[in-house]
């Protein structure tokens, strides 16, 4: 508990630098008058959980598939892989998060999820099911397994955080509540479809109802949201509604490709990547890579050329072309300041 005390002390010291203005004390002395003055003041409504919009996050969800063993860990395949260009190898094996998940399961760990958050040093956020004490105890072993896998792939650019997820913490809805959610979801979907909107799915099981729609223009999205909110209200619920765009088949195929590109580049220091993003439009896919280099950096020219070559080769490979139906793409590589490289 020493660490908690140190933390408390540090935060307290930090806070003591903040001085409350004397006007607040005056305000307290005149409270009845101040309260009178602010007749317009109303108690703010309680914030609902999860009211932020997570449009993209939902669209980019990748469901957890059943894994059938890592090809990469097989020496013969690894040898074969060494003859294929770097990014080309990515399809010879499962994505890194799947490999980690599988390895942990093999060792008897229950992983509740792995998140990889981009940045100059991507953060690998690994969550294990179990109590904090359990995770504390197992942390070193898990670290060893995961680091081994990452090193095996030659990845040297990441931060790894392991935390506990206690699945039993949140109270699950009762049978009746669940039934009400189902009914509300069905009514909402039916109502929206009747209104002529292309609804793909409705998820009523959270604090915020999520309505999945295909790619539509912005005005329509706003319209759908508005109608959905009205329908929810009409059905006697005060839940909020969030609209999420469901990826089309083509887009999810691209997403799969992008995951490989992202993994391959971001987790290796040599490429000096700050972020990789993509924008899918039916007519063209745009891939934007932001590096952490200045054009004047010694290695910049060579590194940019290497990135460009690797990606182009990868995107032009038969495997990727089949996946993306040979769709047009544009590749943009930016320097540290978001500007084009002069080469």
């Amino acid at each position: 508990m020493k660490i908690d005390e140190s933390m408390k002390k540090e935060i307290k010291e930090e806070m003591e630098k903040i001085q409350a203005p004397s006007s607040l004390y005056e305000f307290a002395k005149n409270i009845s008058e101040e309260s009178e003055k602010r007749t317009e003041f109303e108690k703010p409504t309680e914030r609902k959980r999860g009211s932020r919009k997570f449009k993209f996050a939902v669209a980019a969800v990748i469901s957890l598939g059943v894994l059938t063993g890592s090809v990469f860990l097989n020496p013969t395949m690894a040898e074969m892989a060494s003859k294929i260009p770097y990014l080309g190898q990515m399809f010879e094996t499962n994505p890194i998060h799947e490999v980690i998940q599988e390895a942990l399961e093999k060792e008897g760990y229950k992983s509740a999820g792995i998140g990889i958050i981009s940045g100059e040093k991507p953060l690998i956020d690994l969550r294990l099911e179990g109590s904090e004490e359990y995770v504390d105890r197992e942390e070193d072993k898990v670290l060893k397994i995961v680091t081994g896998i990452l090193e095996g792939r030659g990845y040297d650019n990441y931060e790894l955080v392991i935390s506990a997820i206690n699945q039993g913490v949140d109270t699950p809805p009762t049978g009746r509540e669940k039934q009400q959610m189902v009914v509300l979801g069905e009514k909402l979907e039916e109502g929206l479809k009747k209104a002529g909107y292309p609804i793909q799915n409705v998820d009523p099981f959270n604090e915020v109802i999520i309505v999945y729609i295909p790619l539509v223009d912005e005005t329509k999205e706003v319209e759908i949201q508005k109608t959905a909110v009205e329908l929810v209200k009409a059905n006697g619920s005060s839940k909020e509604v969030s609209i999420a765009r469901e990826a089309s088949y083509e887009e999810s195929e691209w997403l799969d490709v992008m995951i490989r590109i992202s993994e391959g580049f971001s987790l290796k220091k040599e490429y000096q990547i700050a972020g990789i993003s993509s924008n899918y439009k039916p007519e063209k896919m745009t891939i934007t890579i932001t590096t952490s280099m200045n054009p004047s950096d010694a290695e910049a020219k060579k590194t940019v050329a290497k990135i460009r070559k690797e990606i182009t080769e990868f995107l032009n490979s038969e495997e990727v072309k089949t996946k993306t139906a040979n769709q047009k793409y544009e590749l943009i590589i930016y320097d540290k300041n978001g500007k084009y490289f002069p080469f």
Partner: protein
Amino acid sequence: MEQKALMIRIRNGDDEAFAQLVTPLIEKGYRTSFSILKSKEQAEEVVQNSMIEVYRNIMSGKEIAYFNTWFYKLVSHRSIDAWRKNVRLKESALEMDVMTDKHDVMESVLIEETENDIIKGISSLDNRDYRHVLLLYYYQDLAIQEISDMLGLKSSTVKSHLRRARNALKKRLIENQFIGVNYK
């Protein structure tokens, strides 16, 4: 007991009693609000509004058992509300660009059993939430469940933030220790 007596005086129209009741709490309340909002004006407004809310609650005869805790919780709540409002305003302007156009691929590599967990997973790594968790836990002494309710995060996420912070501090302390050892 003292506070109960003050509340009776307040109900009888004694403003001075209200000042006596809240004065010892203003400093800490303001500090909390300021650290969340990072704005003197907004923090001041939040504390003022909280005082009015407190006053009106007392006047309406509400029984408040643990006044100090209740007051701090109220200020924290209202500060978080105000902060969310700021974020929402900013987000609505940026959202189209950031959220729908520029898909950050690494962020998309998130797997969890339920989609909702994924969504919260992303938000859980938000540094602002992280900062607030530390503040509410270590400075306001709120319980994990209370923080999770206030911030709309899963309690596991709150715990994970605390863990991250502890680990970071632990690392720093160890590093400092090394320096200490070298000096010997």
